[in-house]
């Protein structure tokens, strides 16, 4: 009898879906695309796909922390652009790769620290704070570059984005390292556990002796540094600093995290699922490109996927 579905028979399936939901979606999506999308399952395309999601992947590591702590960061796209531009300008002026990279990372750290300080210490809403810094930093990028792309003259710098190790492009390696390191930090360090506690209930965390303000500032600072680093890698790949680049990047990163089951109310998130979220976004986009879907439609599709993921999350929580 189909109507007499016993709860004991249903529970393991529901529980499995609860635990592995997005990984299942990822597997099905991957399988479907391999079978039905021409050229999808090829080494060249896999490499292209991984390279395409490498930046989103890197920044989603720190965005995971930010969301898990119950906050938000919209400024990452602007930091990517501004850091690339600053690296280019400083490298060209000083003829030193190190100085250029240091300047860009310093900018990221500063922006991140300001975000963290304003959000955690001054208790201003993260959405508003980072919306402001997003525009300020985007503007700074244009000011520093004079509004145009800055070509980089140091060829030694291009290796970062364009070399390969064991046939795999360096940015993919970097992203893999980031996933590993931040996954470890989240699961195996006091800082990671504190982050989840702060996001789950910041007042309770405070009363349990966790330095909530310090944790939040550290997360935002790391986020800024990570975005700046992604900007450096990007500028190396395209051999120039582009003030226009990565508009809407923050939304892509947040979408990937949310798709990976990170709760927007904080306290819940795991690295494995974020990686799944990043790959789902990447595969969908890649498949659409292969099928020659016009960019305009791609926006609609991405938005719909995000909406579906959030509704799924809500449905899951309602059920509990």
């Amino acid at each position, binding site marked *: 009898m189909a109507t007499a579905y016993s709860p004991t028979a249903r529970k393991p399936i529901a529980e499995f879906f609860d635990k592995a939901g997005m990984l299942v979606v990822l597997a099905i999506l991957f399988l479907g695309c391999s079978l039905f999308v021409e050229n999808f399952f090829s080494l060249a395309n896999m490499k292209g796909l991984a390279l395409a999601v490498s930046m989103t992947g890197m920044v989603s590591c720190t965005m995971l922390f930010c969301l898990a702590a119950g906050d938000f960061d919209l400024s990452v796209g602007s930091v990517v652009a501004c850091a690339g531009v600053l690296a280019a300008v400083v490298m060209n002026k000083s003829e030193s790769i190190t100085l250029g990279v240091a300047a860009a990372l310093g900018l990221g750290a500063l922006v991140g620290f300001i975000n963290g300080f304003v959000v955690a210490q001054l208790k201003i809403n993260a959405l508003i704070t980072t919306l402001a810094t997003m525009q300020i930093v985007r503007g700074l990028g244009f000011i520093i570059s004079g509004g145009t792309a800055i070509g980089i003259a140091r060829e030694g710098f291009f290796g970062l984005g364009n070399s390969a190790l064991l046939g795999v492009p360096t940015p993919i390696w970097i992203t893999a390292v980031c996933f590993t390191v931040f996954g470890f930090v989240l699961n195996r360090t*006091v800082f990671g556990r504190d982050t989840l506690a702060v996001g*789950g209930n910041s007042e309770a965390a405070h009363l349990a002796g966790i330095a909530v303000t310090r944790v939040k500032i550290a997360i935002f600072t790391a986020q800024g540094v990570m975005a700046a680093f992604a900007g450096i890698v990007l500028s190396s790949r395209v051999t120039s600093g582009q003030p226009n680049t990565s508009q809407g990047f923050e939304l892509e990163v947040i979408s990937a995290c949310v798709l990976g089951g990170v709760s927007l109310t904080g306290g819940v998130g795991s690295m494995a699922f974020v990686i799944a979220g990043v790959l789902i976004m990447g595969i969908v986009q890649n498949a659409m490109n292969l099928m020659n879907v016009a960019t305009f439609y791609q926006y609609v599709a991405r938005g719909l996927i995000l909406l579906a993921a959030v509704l799924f999350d809500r449905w899951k929580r309602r059920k509990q």
Partner: protein
Amino acid sequence: MNPSTPLLAFDHVSMDFPGVKALDDVSFDVRAGSIHALMGENGAGKSTLLKILSGAYVPSGGTLVIGGQRKIFTNTAHALAACIAVIYQELHLVPEMSVAENLFLGHLPQRFGLVNRRALAAAAHRQLELIGEDIDPWMKLGQLSLGQRQMVEIAKALTRGARILAFDEPTSSLSDREVRRLFKIIRELKARGCAILYVSHRMEEIFELGDRITILRDGRHVETNELANVTRDTLVQRMVGRTLADVFHYTPRAFGNSGLVVEGLGGPGLTEPCSFTAKAGEILGFFGLIGAGRSELLRLLFGATAKTAGHLTIGGQSLDFVSPREAIAAGVVLCPEDRKKEGIVPVRSVLENTNLSARRRKARAGVLIDESWEQSNAKDRCAQLRVTTPSVRQLIRNLSGGNQQKVILGRWLSETVKVILLDEPTRGIDVGAKSEIYGIMQDLAKAGVCVIVVSSELPEVLGVSDRIAVMRQGKIAAILDRADASEEKLLRLALPLETARAS
């Protein structure tokens, strides 16, 4: 309508919450043109009754009878439609909007879909005049005094044609003059034939204003009577008169010499500097009504709120912490009153919640989680405190209130504790778990911990404490020995009464 006609009656009303029977078969009636006082200790069920009246709760049993008709409200709009208005301690008005807009919120006079400002001002003016208030209808509500806001709330109720008005501690934050005005209006409402239900802790007010009185205790109806037939003394006895089986596990203990010494502590929520001592191994209870400053005092002791004056000494050692983190390191811990908001991290596991604080010291190199310690500590604490959970990986929000409280206690038993501050440790917890928590408190005290417990429940505070401090209006009114304390004495000291002030 005949003044003795019941306009409102509660007919065998019950209300069950998980593990608690908040109201148990309560029946009484409130007459038109009469002021009906409702009294009882904290937790006696007064607020629950008002929430049922306002439609915020649906009773588990029984009905309301309004003007002879049986009614059950499933939302607040139903109650409003039945001409009922409940005026709460925290007012339900919008401070950013004007007085006039607040008065007519939800049914603003409109013309072509736009708010008709002139009609609105005129109508608002009429309503305010009706209760004798001269307030500019276009003032922002936030600019008014609390007393004036209350008047606006009453006027709002009247604009909706309310015939049954319930007041929940309406004078708690009013000045004397405002109280006079409020009483005058309540009497006018009575003269107009409204039925008034008046909840207050203040005896003078009840005797000055009330015609009849109903007393609740532990969710049960004790008596309804003409006020002329009762005295203050019988009233207090009826409110507290109960015996409870010995669930407190109280055993006399020897105290250590040194303990907690608090001198001249001052800060937000306290009206006078507080000084007291609690020896190692002693259980010091704090009794008082809601808002007397007890929770504020604990937060100051814990460093969760910055103190403005005073000094702490523990075990002869002078301490001056400014954050919970430092307090915990010094051996002072707090189980907060509002478990959900301040105690647990609901989306995390029992293990996470147990180790939330102690893991900082146990981590390898202060950074890396020691998985085996985390596991064994969580399991040990759960076993020690008899936490009922399928596993330590279970999310804490799936546990009952009593088990959540035990996990928070377990969090602190993972630390080296010298002083434990417990704020309403058994609120919303069933009797079995309560008794276990009292046992844990006794064990802690026996182990030489200084236990400070805040409670609104008289039997609890009398049952567990060695000494009891009574707080009233932001200061310590008295500290009594266990042998000298009684429910009547504590309540008299806690109530803002003239008799108490004189003593």
